[in-house]
């Protein structure tokens, strides 16, 4: 039995230990209190490592390129953020860099930092819980998947006007986004908290 409060209405519930896959909802407002997902330490860690490597790799290669009438141009993710650098859109450069690569990278890196030692039998870092709390707080600001939708829209807009080429960074970012989306739908933050709890 665990004592839990509904995150949407604060109603207290005594939740019994549920079988994997079983959800528990709030009696009063129907909000999911226990999502029933189990965390596989190995899988979560492997995905987090893959995301950090893919995003880091993506920084140094062209994302997309276009050519038309003998002229051509390509852009890396950093160059995409830098388009706002001149004039009063300058702060957007930092915002775009953070939301598309900075925060998704940091969130994956925090998972590696917090769960890596557990997996290999080392003591958990002192700041693991605080780092994971930061990762949860930053969750709405990680916008890799929204940038991905943006890429699709931009592609449709220019594909008739010019020849478009996909760079190595495009595929790396594509893979990272898919892994992040998969992780969001299969990993339960409550289960990660209990992993951290068990180690402390």
């Amino acid at each position, binding site marked *: 039995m665990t004592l839990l409060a509904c995150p949407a209405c*604060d109603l207290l519930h005594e939740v019994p230990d549920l079988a994997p896959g079983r959800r528990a909802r709030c009696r009063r407002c129907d909000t999911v209190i226990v999502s029933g997902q189990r965390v596989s330490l190995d899988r979560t860690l492997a995905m987090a490592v893959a995301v950090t490597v893919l995003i880091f790799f993506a920084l140094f290669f062209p994302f997309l390129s276009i050519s038309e009438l003998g002229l051509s141009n390509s852009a890396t993710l950093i160059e*995409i953020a830098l388009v706002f650098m001149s004039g009063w859109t300058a702060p957007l450069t930092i915002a775009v860099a953070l939301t*598309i690569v900075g925060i998704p990278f940091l969130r994956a890196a925090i998972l590696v930092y917090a769960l890596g030692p557990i997996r290999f039998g080392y003591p958990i870092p002192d700041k693991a819980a605080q780092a994971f709390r930061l990762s949860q707080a930053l969750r709405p600001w990680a916008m890799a998947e929204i940038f991905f939708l943006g890429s699709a829209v931009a592609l*449709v807009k220019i594909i008739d006007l010019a020849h478009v080429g996909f760079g190595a960074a495009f595929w790396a970012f594509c893979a990272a986004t898919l892994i992040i989306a998969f992780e969001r739908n299969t990993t339960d933050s409550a289960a990660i908290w209990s992993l951290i709890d068990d180690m402390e």
Partner: protein
Amino acid sequence: MVPDRRYGVTAREAGLVACHRCELVSEKDLQRCPRCNARLRSRKPQSLQRVWAWWIAGFLAYIPANLYPMLTTRQLGRESADTIIGGVIVLIEYGSVGIALIIFVASVVVPMSKFLVIALLALSIMRPSRLSQKARIHLHEVIEFVGRWSMVDVFVVALLAALVQLGAAAEVNPGPAAICFALSVAFTMLSAQAFDPRLIWDTLPAKSKMEKQA
């Protein structure tokens, strides 16, 4: 205020407080969560004031976001500047109805509904509401989930401006509306986050309130 006891007691009524970050339930006297060290608060502090402050900031930023151009295009010597709506109209003229719809929903429908829904939720705490409590919880969930997708148009501008730099042949540059729009999205996300859904349940529906007064 009458506590609603039909379903049991809340953490606050039991002298407990649930951490807003990691959901661990602790005694209410604790300052910080023993698990994640977040400040423990039973309800988000000054929730409604912060909701309205971010709401107003977001609304003020949304006005220039629609008046100034999102991007300027120079193609073979001709220069044109497109606002959000202007860009949607151009897309429809070129026959890209699907893309026009994505941009219209993300940049107009979602932000507008967000302003409406957040205002409605905040007002429903200040005075009796005809919407059921469950319906309001769902509205808040939906708005928190979709709000961030509005950013898509800013990313489209970034990609186009970074790619289409073909000198005299074609050149796309971001306009001032891009930052106004991004700020508006960020401010309304903060407004929705500042709203504490627990407030919806802290008072009973209007009927029971009258019973108490009688």
